């Protein structure tokens, strides 16, 4: 009997060694941790329960039958993050370069199916050379099986991808369909076709890092939502993100004890808006001063910085924040910022996360590059996302809310629940100067007259009261009491029920 028990131990030890000590050392030498080490860091101590440790591939071509490592290049299972259940798969680069075989895919599919069934997030750790070429179409089929499950799980449980090594070719499309993609600086890259193919086809010479490194995807392509310094930090920060997210679409977002007075007054916010309307200020200061304990988890920090997206907590409960950033491009909406914010709003709506919108927007960015790029349809995405969202929506206009961008930014007309404005708000079709030049075109030659018309326009429209008179603004609030007002607004919306008409699904302008 003892022998049988110790055989299990022996098999386990063997499986845990993955591709062997030499390859583990090589992985470490690259500054990367192994699949199992990453899981250790991701999950609560001792909480990991593994599935399919002894699964091995069934390929018999190209001499593959001689190497059948247990686990087949991916470690799967479940565990807890601060006591809350998550499913995880972690590709093992030490086994066939983490390449995806039919059985490797089956292991991933198994835990994804369980995650959807049991209502817990899926965290995928990607470190793979790509398809297992020896298996041919079986490997491709494996990818597609995973893709289909990503699609079915979307909106049911949160899916997080962490790219911690190569992720190329078809492999990129699984992460691409998850909710969040994070990368590790210098040791990860993602692309559909690698530098060699690029060179052959287009004659472009580019390194893997330039083509698909963390910097490229967080700053240029927006494929990734964030990048971390190393594996240890990446796992710690994914834990931090999971603390914000509900486990599935049937649950409310998590609440945790908080040490911050919901009624905290921030006198300094009364001077946040500069005297000069053309002077920028940092919207992140407002976010930090409204949030519980100043804690903000930013999503897509380095992309389309003219809009800020991320998670905070109010009275311990997760709230998604979308805010124009006057520091960058005056906080205007454009193609990139609309896409970024739209996707974030839809994520929040999927998972019942209330949305706080902070508005200081001078309008949409003009120009041929925007129009040719389809700003009409991209801007419509954000409009659509806000309009269809049924979660509690609280909006605070701090300064400018001009033109169509006013409508887009969670206005009253898009079923905003609480629409607040600071006394510094200016809700109008456009800035005073532009408006005057159109209304009083005849006086364009007379600078004095234009100045006087501009002054009249400012007096009449550069304030929140015209909108408040019509009920488009529920209340004009003091900046220093923003945290209190917003917290109470969300508290009052905890029982909100709102349903859109039945439909198979909508047809958002993709």
């Amino acid at each position, binding site marked *: 009997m003892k022998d049988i028990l110790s055989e299990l131990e022996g098999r386990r030890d063997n499986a845990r060694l993955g591709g062997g000590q030499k390859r583990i050392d090589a992985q470490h030498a690259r500054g990367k941790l192994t699949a199992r080490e990453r899981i250790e860091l991701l999950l609560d101590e001792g*909480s990991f329960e593994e599935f399919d440790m002894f699964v091995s591939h069934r390929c018999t071509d190209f001499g593959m039958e001689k190497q059948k490592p247990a686990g087949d290049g991916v470690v799967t299972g479940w565990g807890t993050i601060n006591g809350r259940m998550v499913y995880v798969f972690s590709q093992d680069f030490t086994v066939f370069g983490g390449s995806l075989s039919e059985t490797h895919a089956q292991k991933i599919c198994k835990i994804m199916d369980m995650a959807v069934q049991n209502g817990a997030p899926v965290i995928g750790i990607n470190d793979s050379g790509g398809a297992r070429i020896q298996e041919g179409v079986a490997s491709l089929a494996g990818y597609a099986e995973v893709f289909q499950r990503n699609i079915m799980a979307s909106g049911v449980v949160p899916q997080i991808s962490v790219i911690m090594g190569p992720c190329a070719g078809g492999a990129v499309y699984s992460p691409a369909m998850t909710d969040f993609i994070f990368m590790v600086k210098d040791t990860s890259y993602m692309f559909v076709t690698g530098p060699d193919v690029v060179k052959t086809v287009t004659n472009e010479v580019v390194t893997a890092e330039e083509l698909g490194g963390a910097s490229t995807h967080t700053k240029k392509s927006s494929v990734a939502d964030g990048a971390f310094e190393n594996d240890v930090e990446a796992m710690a920060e994914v834990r931090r993100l999971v603390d914000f997210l509900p486990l599935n679409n049937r649950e409310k977002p998590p609440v945790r004890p908080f040490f911050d007075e919901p009624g905290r007054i921030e006198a300094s916010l009364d001077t946040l808006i500069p005297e000069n309307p053309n002077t920028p200020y940092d919207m992140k200061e407002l976010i930090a001063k409204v949030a519980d304990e100043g804690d903000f988890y930013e999503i897509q920090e380095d992309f389309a910085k003219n809009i800020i997206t991320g998670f905070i907590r109010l009275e311990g409960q997760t709230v998604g924040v979308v805010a124009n950033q006057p520091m960058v491009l005056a906080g205007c909406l454009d193609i990139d910022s609309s896409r970024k914010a739209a996707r974030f709003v839809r994520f929040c709506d999927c998972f019942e996360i209330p949305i706080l919108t902070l508005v200081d927007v001078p309008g949409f960015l003009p120009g041929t590059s925007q129009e040719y790029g389809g700003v009409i349809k991209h801007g419509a995405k954000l409009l659509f996302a806000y309009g269809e969202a049924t979660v509690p929506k609280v909006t605070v206009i701090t300064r400018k809310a001009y033109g169509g961008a006013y409508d887009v930014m969670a206005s009253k007309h898009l079923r905003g629940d609480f629409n607040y404005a600071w006394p510094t708000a200016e809700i109008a079709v456009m800035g005073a100067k532009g408006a005057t030049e159109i209304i009083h075109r005849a006086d364009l030659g007379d600078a004095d007259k234009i100045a006087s018309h501009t002054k009249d326009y400012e007096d009449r429209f550069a304030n929140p009261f015209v909108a408040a008179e019509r009920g488009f603004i529920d209340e004009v609030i003091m900046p220093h009491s923003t945290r209190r007002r917003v917290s109470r607004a969300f508290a009052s919306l905890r029982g909100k029920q709102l349903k859109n008409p039945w439909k198979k699904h909508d047809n958002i302008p993709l």
Partner: protein
Amino acid sequence: MFNKILIANRGEIACRVIKTARKMGIGTVAIYSDADKNALHVSMADEAVHIGPPPANQSYIVIDKVMDAIRQSGAQAVHPGYGFLSENSKFAEALEAEGVAFVGPPVGAIESMGDKITSKKIAQEAGVSTVPGYMGLIEDADEAVRISNDIGYPVMIKASAGGGGKGMRIAWSDEEAREGFQSSKNEAANSFGDDRIFIEKFVTQPRHIEIQVLCDSHGNGIYLGERECSIQRRNQKVVEEAPSPFLDPETRKAMGEQAVALAKAVNYASAGTVEFIVDGDKNFYFLEMNTRLQVEHPVTELITGVDLVEQMIRVAAGEKLSITQDDVTLTGWAIENRLYAEDPYRNFLPSIGRLTRYRPPQETAAGPLLVNGKWQGEAPEGETAVRNDTGVYEGGEISMYYDPMIAKLCTWAPTREKAIEAMRVALDSFEVEGIGHNLPFLSAVMDHPKFVSGDMTTAFIAEEYPDGFEGVTLPEVDLRRIAASCAAMHRVAEIRRTRVSGRMDNHERKVGKRWVVTLQGQDFAVQVNADKEGSTVKFDDGSSLRVASDWTPGDQLAVLDVDGSPLVLKIGKISGGFRVRNRGADLKVHVRRPRQAELAKLMPEKLPPDTSKMLLCPMPGLVVKIDVEVGQEVQEGQALCTIEAMKMENILRAEKRGVVAKVNAGPGDSLAVDDVIIEFE
């Protein structure tokens, strides 16, 4: 007494004067420029009058505008503060003509003390010790030797036109005087085309010590002890204290009596300061007299219990001094640290912008020591006091137009040692964010052995920080205290995380006791045993520290008690730990599970890219023009390019000398923050 007083100043000193005026029941009028519309002194005053655009030469120092404000408000007296119009005799004359009292000395005193040569002459006549020297032309080396002997060695031989150390020699003997004269003369002729030379006493180990005097218009005058102001950076005082750790009662008395004699010689009537330079043998020489309230007056107030501003106002109203020299006692020790909006890591470059966070330490000075300006007797043993004179507030703006000093933090204690310790804690408790500031540097000075021993000269900063300030490296004993505190705090934060909703019943995360704290390149493996009152943090060498605090996650200031002594940490957020500021050190503290720490060791160390040879774009914007080309040599401060951002043109300048190696941007390019614009060789 006056009903209404106008304060012709801004910032902390305007606020300071308003406080006393209010205490005396006098109405206050502030004046303000466009840049100060929302300033603290404006909101503190009973009335405020706008006097023009931001630059001081179009507002605060325009006599006509101030006079208009006086007429408009009906103020009967004007307190000028320091700087601006405080030592402007024309302003004092204008007030006299208008029949408005000037809270300061008579015009004649301002005039005679305002001129260096006149003031020195008057001082000599009043029997005040001045730096011996010979101002006339010196013909030859023999004459130089004779004069040097008259003065007494060591002497300094200087070119009249000199500057930057050129044409300057120090001589300790006849031979050196002869040589020095010749070489100075040659150097001066070559460098300046002017070979005139003069000789004066060379003051060794110079200290800057000044005497506070107070006189009324009835011929009474007293001195209120001294202030030591030797800690200066480029003639800008940084740290002051009273009394001086260097003076003995005899020297103090001699200096004080001479200072009063000088004041009386010019019919002084107000508070004033006589500055001396004191050498290593306690010889003192008159430098100049400041005919106004000094920036550093609070340290004198703290050890004498006299409210100088009140006394100035009373004197200006014609009252007689109510205290005599015998009433003046110096009790305890007071230290002042000047908080500047200057970034010590960037060679003390002024920093402007919004104060996103400004939380000075709790003030306690007004309680035990000063009530209605009267000394309340000796504070109980061990009790300390904190006073912060400030002109800013959280959410306020530090503008580019005025002095970068934003607060004067003072501590008082029965002894110098305790006053320094109180200052260390007060500095640690001071929260400033949004702008660069010199708090880390001040902390470093408070811990510097030379300062602690009181053995300092005016060359202290230049000698001890010759290459600028590069932060503080803490000794292990301090690191352990911080490590223990961070471990205990981290544990609290981690336990809170496990209290999130939606967890699996019966399978909760158990937060462990063992942690590895990494800071300043050192690892400390600790075990945290928490109980109701605090935590005992055991180190792997068997030693332990007891940590108690009511810190909760998110608090930006952790006030702890570590083994019975206080520790105050400024806390910021970083992934997996804390950013901690303490005693001038800025630390990244990681707190990890043992296994996590083990794996973290495998992570490659990433050095930040060397950006010292690059010009990075400080803000997103558009390149308007590039002023340099490849191969060009640039000097420190030279304009390199202009970036337009938010409709403002920002000129970027060279931080040091260099040769342009590469220009990566051209006019019209749109840049993001930290884009490399120019690379240097």
